[in-house]
C-alpha cells in the first residue's frame, strides 16, 4: 500500500477534557481527563477498521475527533490530505458531506418532532441539492439500506418505527450524501439480538458496494470481527494493539488484548471457564498509572512498565504497544504504517 491511498491520518492526537477550575489548577491537581492521549494511525481508502475497547478507553472520543465533532487538544488529523483540525466555513461544510457518523442509539439520533422524510432531507438541504432531486435520492438510499417500500416510512415519526428500522434510517441519513468515510459508533448495541444481524449485514453490504472507508467503534470483539478486517484496541486513551482482526482474535499479543479475547462469552455450552489473565479492578481515566497505563492490571508487568511508556513494536502485520515486544531493531520500522 502506498501513501496516496491513505484517507485519514491521525498523528499524535490528544483530547483532554478540562475538569476543576482556576483554584484546582493553582493547587496543582490534575486539570484534565485524558480521553485520548497521543494516538497515531492511518486509515486507508476502502478499509474497515474496528476501534475496540472498554467503556472509557477513548474509542468514542477518537471517533469524534475523526469527524471533527471535537478538536484535538494536540496533534493533527488529516482527511484526504487536508488538516481538518483547522478547517472552517466552506471547507468544513465540504468535509461534513464526506464524513458521516452512524449513531449508537437510533431512538435518539432522530428528532422526534420530524418525519423520516424531513430527517433525510436535512443533509440534502444543507448540501444544496435541488428540491427536485431530493425525493429520488431519498428513495435510492432507502433501497440501499433495505427499506425498499420507502413510501410507508417517509411520513412517519421516529417513535412509530422499530429499533431495527430506525437504525437503518440513521444509516440512510449518513449515506444519503454518498460520503467517503463513515464512523459507526456501536450501531447495534441498543438493538435486540434478533435484529442486530440485519443492521450489520446492511452495513457490510453498503460498505462494500460504496467502497466506504469505515471505522466501527465497539466493545464487542465478535461484532468487530464480523465487519472489520483490521482492529485497533484501545486502553485508557492509548492504542495497545493494531492489526488484522483475524490475527488479533487468533493470537492476541498484548496482555490486555489477551484478556479481552478470553473474556468474550460465546453462545455455546462448551467453553473455557479459566480465570482471566488479568487483575481485578477497573481503569480510572482520571488517574491513569504512570508508564504503561495497563500495568496495574497486567499479570506480566515489570519494573520498566512503571517508568516508561511503551512505544509501538511491530510484530508481523501488527503494532503492539508493550515492553514485552520491545526489541530495538523493530522500533524504527514501527514508526511507519503497517504494510
Amino acid at each position, binding site marked *: 500500500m502506498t501513501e496516496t491511498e491513505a484517507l485519514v491520518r491521525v498523528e499524535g492526537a490528544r483530547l483532554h477534557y478540562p475538569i476543576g477550575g482556576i483554584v484546582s489548577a493553582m493547587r496543582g*491537581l490534575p486539570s484534565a481527563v485524558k480521553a485520548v492521549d497521543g494516538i497515531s494511525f492511518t486509515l486507508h481508502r476502502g478499509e474497515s477498521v474496528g476501534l475496540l475497547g472498554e467503556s472509557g478507553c477513548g474509542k468514542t472520543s477518537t471517533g469524534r475527533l475523526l469527524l471533527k465533532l471535537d478538536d484535538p487538544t494536540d496533534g493533527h488529523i488529516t482527511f484526504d490530505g487536508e488538516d481538518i483540525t483547522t478547517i472552517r466555513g466552506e471547507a468544513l461544510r465540504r468535509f461534513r458531506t464526506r464524513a458521516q457518523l452512524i449513531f449508537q442509539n437510533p431512538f435518539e439520533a432522530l428528532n422526534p418532532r420530524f418525519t423520516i422524510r424531513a430527517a433525510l432531507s436535512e443533509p440534502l438541504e444543507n448540501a444544496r441539492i435541488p428540491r427536485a432531486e431530493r425525493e429520488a435520492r431519498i428513495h435510492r438510499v432507502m433501497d440501499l439500506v433495505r427499506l425498499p417500500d420507502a413510501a410507508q416510512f417517509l411520513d412517519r415519526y421516529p417513535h412509530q418505527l422499530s429499533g431495527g428500522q430506525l437504525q437503518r434510517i440513521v444509516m440512510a441519513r449518513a449515506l444519503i450524501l454518498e460520503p467517503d468515510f463513515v464512523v459507526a459508533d456501536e450501531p447495534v448495541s441498543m438493538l435486540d439480538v434478533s435484529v442486530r444481524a440485519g443492521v450489520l449485514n446492511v452495513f457490510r453490504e453498503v460498505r462494500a458496494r460504496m467502497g466506504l472507508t469505515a471505522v466501527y467503534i465497539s466493545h464487542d470483539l465478535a461484532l468487530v470481527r464480523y465487519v472489520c478486517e483490521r482492529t485497533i484496541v484501545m486502553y485508557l486513551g492509548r492504542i495497545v494493539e493494531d492489526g488484522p482482526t483475524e490475527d488479533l482474535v487468533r493470537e492476541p499479543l498484548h496482555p490486555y488484548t489477551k484478556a479481552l479475547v478470553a473474556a468474550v462469552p460465546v453462545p455455546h455450552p462448551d467453553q473455557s471457564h479459566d480465570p482471566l489473565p488479568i487483575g481485578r479492578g477497573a481503569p480510572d481515566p482520571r488517574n491513569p498509572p504512570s508508564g504503561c497505563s495497563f500495568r496495574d492490571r497486567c499479570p506480566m508487568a515489570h519494573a520498566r512498565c512503571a517508568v516508561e511508556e511503551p512505544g509501538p513494536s511491530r510484530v508481523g502485520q501488527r503494532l503492539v504497544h508493550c515492553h514485552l515486544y520491545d526489541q530495538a531493531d523493530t522500533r524504527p520500522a514501527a514508526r511507519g504504517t503497517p504494510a
Partner: protein
Amino acid sequence: MKAITAIGSRLLQTLFVLWAVVTILFLMFRLMPGNPMAAYIDPNFTPEQQDALMARFGLDRPLWEQYFIYLGNLLQGDLGESFFYRTPVTERILALLPNTLILTFSSLIVAYAFGILAGSYLAWKRGSRVEQVAVPVVLTTRAMPEFWLGMILLAVFSFTLGWFPAGGTRPPGAEYDGYWALYTSRDFLVHLTLPVLTLAIYSQGLPLLLMRSNMLDVMKEDFVTMARIKGLSPFTVVIRHAARNALLPVTTSFAIAVGYQIQGNVVVETVFSWPGLGRELVRAVSASDYPLAQGAFLMIAVVVILMNLIADLLYALLDPRVTRE
C-alpha cells in the same frame, strides 16, 4: 480535595458577584435623575452652606473618585452617613438586621416544617381526592399578595378578635435585658405570630410542592423499590430512604428561600409595623436617603448572595455524592 477546590472557586465567584452588585448599586444611585440632596437642603441655606453639605457627603467629587472612596469605605465596613439621620448607616442597619432575620427565619422554619410534612403526606396520598384539592389550593396561597393577606389577618385576628397585637415587636414601654431576653419572651412571640403566619402561609408552598414532587421522584427510584424488595417496613422505606433523599434539595432551597424572603419582608414589615431592614429601605428610598437606601439594599443583597452560597455549600455537605470524591 475536589470539594475544597470547588468551594474555593465558589467563594471566588461570590466575591465577584458581591463586587458587581456593589458597583451596580453605586452607579444606580449616582446616575438616577434628581438632586440627591434635594430633600435635605433647607431653603434657608446660603449657597455656601449647600456646597458645604454636598462636600460633606463627597458629592462634589468626580464620579470615579466617589466610586473608589465608596469602595474603600466599604472595605472598612463604612457605608457612609445617612442623609436623614445624619448618623452612620452601618449602625442603623445593624440595629435593624436582627429583627428582619428573626422574622425571616421563624417564618421559614414554620413554613418548611409544615411544607415538608404536608408535602410528604400529599406524595404519600398521590392521586387521592385530598391531593387533587390540595395542589391547586397550595398554588393559590402563592398567588396571594402578602400585604393583602396580612391586612386581612390583621383585621380578623387583631382588630376584630383582639387575639394579637396590631404591630411592633413588644408591648409599649416594655424593657428587656438585651436581644436574647426580648426574643425569648412571650410578649415577643405574641407580636411575632401574625407576621410569621402571613409570611409562612405564603412561603409554605415552595417546600410543600418541592417535597411532594421530590418524594414522587424518589419513590420511583430503584433504591426505593429495592428497599421494598428487601422487605423493609414501609416506614423505613418512606422515611429512611425516600424522605431522606427527597429532603436534600428542599434543605438547600431553605437557604435560597431566606434570600427571597428577606426581600419580600419589605411589605409585611410595613403592614405589621415591624422595625426591620425592609421597611427602612422603603422609607430611605422614599425619603431620598441615598446612603441608607444603598446600605440597606446592599445588606439585603449580601444576605441573598450569602444564602445562595450557603445553599450550594449545604448541598455539598448533605449529598455525599458531591463531598466524598
